[in-house]
C-alpha cells in the first residue's frame, strides 16, 4: 500500500511528458508571438523524448501504484503510435494555425495534456484510472475544438462535443459504479478474476455486472464514435478547425481502442460472449450508417467523419472476436486508420490557406493538373481508406474481416464487405474530382514554404504503400503485444 519511488520510474514516460508540458506552459508565457516557434519545436521534442523513453523500456510487463498502472507491450505499442502521430500532427498544423491567428501556446499545451491523458488511459489498471485518463484526454479536446472562439460553427461543435461527451462520461461512470457494486473491487484484473461473484463475501450480482457492462459498452462506443452513438462526430469534424480535426480524428482512436481493450478484456473478459454480441450490433449499424450517409456529403471533412464511423465499425469487427488475434487485428486497424486520416487531413491542411479552407470536394477538382504529387498522396489516402490492394488499408480490413469470420459472425463480415464496396463510391468521387474534373483555377498550385509539412506528408503517403507491402513486422509487433 505504500508509495515507493520505483513506481515513478515505471511511469517515466508519463512523468517526463507531464514535466515537459508544465515547463512548456511556463516558457510559453515569456515568449513573444514572433518566438512561438520555440513552443512548437519544444512540444515536438517533448513528444519525441517521451517516445524515446517508451522505446527504451524493455522490461517485462509489470504494475505500478498498486495496480493502477499497467506497463505491458500493448500499452507500449499504442503509446509509440499515439506519440508519433501527435508529433506528426504538430508538424502538419503549424502553418494552418499561423495563418488563422491560432498559433498560440494553449494549442500545444492542451494537446500535450490530451496526449498525457491518452497515455494514462491505455495503461490504466483500475476503473478510476480509466475514467481519469479519459477525462484528461476529453476535457482538453473539448477546449481544443473551441479554440477558434470567434467562429460560430466551432463554438457549436464544441458545445455539442462537450454536452454529449459529458453525457457519455456519465453513462460510463454509471456503468463503472455498477461494476464496482457487483464485484467490490476497482482493480481490472480482480474484476476479471471474480466475475460476478464478488470479493469480501458480497452477494452474487451477475445481473448487476451485466448491467454495468451495457453502460460501459455505450461509453466506449461513444468514444469510438460508433453508431448509434455517432451524433457528435460529423459536427465536430466539420466545425472544428482542420488542425484540431486532424488531431481528434487520429490518435484518440488508438486511445479508444486501448480503453476498450482494458475495460472489456482486462476487466470484463469473463462476459465476452455478452459484449461480443453488443459490439456486433454496433459494428453492423456503424458500417451501414457511416457508409450510406457519407455518400450524400459534399464537405470533405464531413464525409471523412462519416467514413470514420464506418471504419470504427471495421475496428469493432476485430474487437468482437475477443481473442488475442482479434485484438491484434483491431490494433493493427487502429494504427492503420490513424495514418490514413493524417494523410487525408494533411492534404486538406496543405491546400488550405488564409481565408480558404479547402474543405469542399469541389475544391479538389483538377488537383492533378495543378499539383500531381499531392493529388497522388490524396489518391493513396483515399484508396487506402477504401481498402484497395496493395495499400495498407486493404490488409487491415482483411485481418479484421478474418477475425469476425473466425468468431462466427459470417453475416457481419458479409455486411462489412458489402458496405466497403458502397464506401468505394465516395472515396473514388474525390479521386474523380482530382483527376478527371476540370479545375476552376488552372494555374499551378502555390505551395506553402513549409518544408517539414511537405516532406512529412509525402512520407506519410509513401508509408501507406510501404506498409501495404511490408506489413509483416508491424502485425508481428501487434501479435507479440497480445502474447501470440
Amino acid at each position: 500500500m505504500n508509495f515507493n519511488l520505483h513506481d515513478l520510474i515505471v511511469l517515466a514516460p508519463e512523468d517526463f511528458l507531464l514535466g515537459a508540458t508544465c515547463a512548456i506552459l511556463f516558457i510559453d508565457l515569456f515568449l513573444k508571438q514572433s518566438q512561438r516557434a520555440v513552443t512548437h519545436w519544444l512540444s515536438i521534442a517533448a513528444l519525441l523524448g517521451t517516445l524515446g523513453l517508451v522505446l527504451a523500456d524493455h522490461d517485462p510487463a509489470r504494475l505500478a501504484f498498486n495496480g493502477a498502472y499497467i506497463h505491458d507491450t500493448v500499452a507500449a505499442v499504442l503509446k509509440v503510435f499515439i506519440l508519433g502521430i501527435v508529433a506528426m500532427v504538430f508538424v502538419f498544423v503549424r502553418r494552418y494555425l499561423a495563418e488563422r491567428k491560432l498559433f498560440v501556446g494553449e494549442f500545444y499545451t492542451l494537446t500535450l495534456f490530451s496526449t498525457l491523458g491518452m497515455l494514462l488511459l491505455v495503461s490504466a489498471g483500475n476503473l478510476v484510472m480509466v475514467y481519469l485518463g479519459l477525462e484528461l484526454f476529453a476535457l482538453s479536446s473539448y477546449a481544443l475544438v473551441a479554440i477558434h472562439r470567434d467562429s460560430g460553427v466551432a463554438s457549436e461543435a464544441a458545445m455539442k462535443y462537450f454536452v454529449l461527451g459529458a453525457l457519455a462520461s456519465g453513462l460510463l461512470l454509471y456503468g463503472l459504479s455498477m461494476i464496482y457494486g457487483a464485484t467490490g473491487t476497482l482493480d481490472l484484473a480482480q474484476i476479471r478474476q471474480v466475475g460476478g461473484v464478488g470479493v469480501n463475501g458480497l452477494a452474487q450480482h451477475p445481473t448487476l455486472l451485466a448491467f454495468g457492462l451495457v453502460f460501459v459498452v455505450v461509453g466506449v462506443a461513444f468514444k469510438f464514435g460508433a453508431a448509434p452513438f455517432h451524433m457528435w462526430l460529423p459536427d465536430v469534424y466539420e466545425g472544428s478547425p482542420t488542425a484540431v480535426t486532424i488531431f481528434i480524428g487520429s490518435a484518440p482512436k488508438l486511445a479508444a481502442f486501448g480503453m476498450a481493450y482494458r475495460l472489456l478484456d482486462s476487466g470484463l473478459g469473463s462476459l465476452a460472449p455478452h459484449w461480443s454480441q453488443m459490439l456486433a450490433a454496433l459494428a453492423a449499424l456503424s458500417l451501414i450508417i457511416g457508409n450510406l450517409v457519407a455518400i450524400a456529403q459534399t464537405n470533405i471533412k464531413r464525409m471523412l467523419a462519416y467514413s470514420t464511423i464506418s471504419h470504427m465499425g471495421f475496428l469493432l469487427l476485430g474487437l468482437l472476436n475477443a481473442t488475442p488475434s482479434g485484438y491484434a487485428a483491431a490494433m493493427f486497424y487502429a494504427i492503420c486508420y490513424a495514418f490514413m486520416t493524417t494523410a487525408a487531413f494533411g492534404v486538406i491542411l496543405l491546400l488550405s490557406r488564409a481565408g480558404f479552407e479547402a474543405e469542399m470536394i469541389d475544391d479538389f477538382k483538377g488537383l492533378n493538373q495543378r499539383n500531381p504529387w499531392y493529388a497522388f498522396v490524396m489518391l493513396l489516402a483515399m484508396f487506402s481508406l477504401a481498402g484497395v490492394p496493395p495499400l495498407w488499408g486493404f490488409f487491415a480490413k482483411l485481418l479484421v474481416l478474418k477475425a469476425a469470420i473466425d468468431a462466427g459472425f459470417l453475416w457481419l463480415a458479409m455486411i462489412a464487405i458489402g458496405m466497403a464496396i458502397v464506401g468505394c463510391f465516395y472515396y473514388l468521387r474525390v479521386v474523380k474530382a482530382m483527376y478527371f474534373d476540370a479545375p476552376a483555377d488552372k494555374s499551378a498550385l502555390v505551395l506553402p514554404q513549409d518544408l517539414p509539412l511537405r516532406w512529412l506528408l509525402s512520407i506519410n503517403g509513401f508509408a501507406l504503400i510501404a506498409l501495404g507491402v511490408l506489413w509483416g513486422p508491424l502485425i508481428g509487433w501487434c501479435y507479440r503485444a497480445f502474447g501470440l
Partner: protein
Amino acid sequence: MNLILFYVFAAVLVLAALGVIAVKNSVHAALLLVLCFFTTSALWLLMQAEFLAIALVLVYVGAVMVLFLFVVMMLDIKVEPLREGFIRFLPVGVLVAAVMLAEMLMLIGVRSMQIAPPADPAGHSNTAWLGEALFTRFLLPFEIAAVILTVAVIAAVMLTLRKRVGIKSQNPSKQVAVKASERVRIVKMPSAVRDVAAKSEATP
C-alpha cells in the same frame, strides 16, 4: 431504521432531481438542485461518510450553487423559449424513460439495491481513512485529478481572456511601484479674485 431513512432520503432526492428539470422558474430549479445535494449528503451521513457529506455541503451548496444562483439571477433568462420543444417531445421522452426504468428494475431487482453500511476497518474515523487512501492507494489517481484541474484552468483562461484595444486594465507592478510624488501633483497658483458680476453678464 437506517433503511427507512435511506428510502425517505432517496425518494426526496429523486423527486428533487425531477423538480430540477421540470420546474419553469430557473431560480427554483437551482434551489431544488441545492436540495438534491443536501439530500445526497444526508445519504452519505447515513453511510458514515461524514467527511464527504460535509465537503459536499460546503463546496457544492456553499460555493458552487451560490455562484450558480447569482449567475441565474443576473442573466434574467426568458423561460418560455427554452421549453418550446418540451411538450412536443414529452410523450417520447416519458416512454423511453419509463421503459428504461422498468427494465432496470426488472434486471437488478429492488432487493439488491439495499445498502450495507461498510465495516469500519480499524476504528479509524472516515476522514482519516479517506486521507490515508488518497495518499497511498489512490495516489496516482489523485495526482491525475490535479492535472485535470490544471487543464480546466488553462481551458477557462484560453476561452475567456480577451485582449481588446482600449480596455482599462490594472497593472499591479506599476501600482505597487508608484510613489507619492507621482500620485499627487501640487500646483502653485497665484490667488485671484473672480469677477462674478462680469461673468454672469457674459453668459445669459
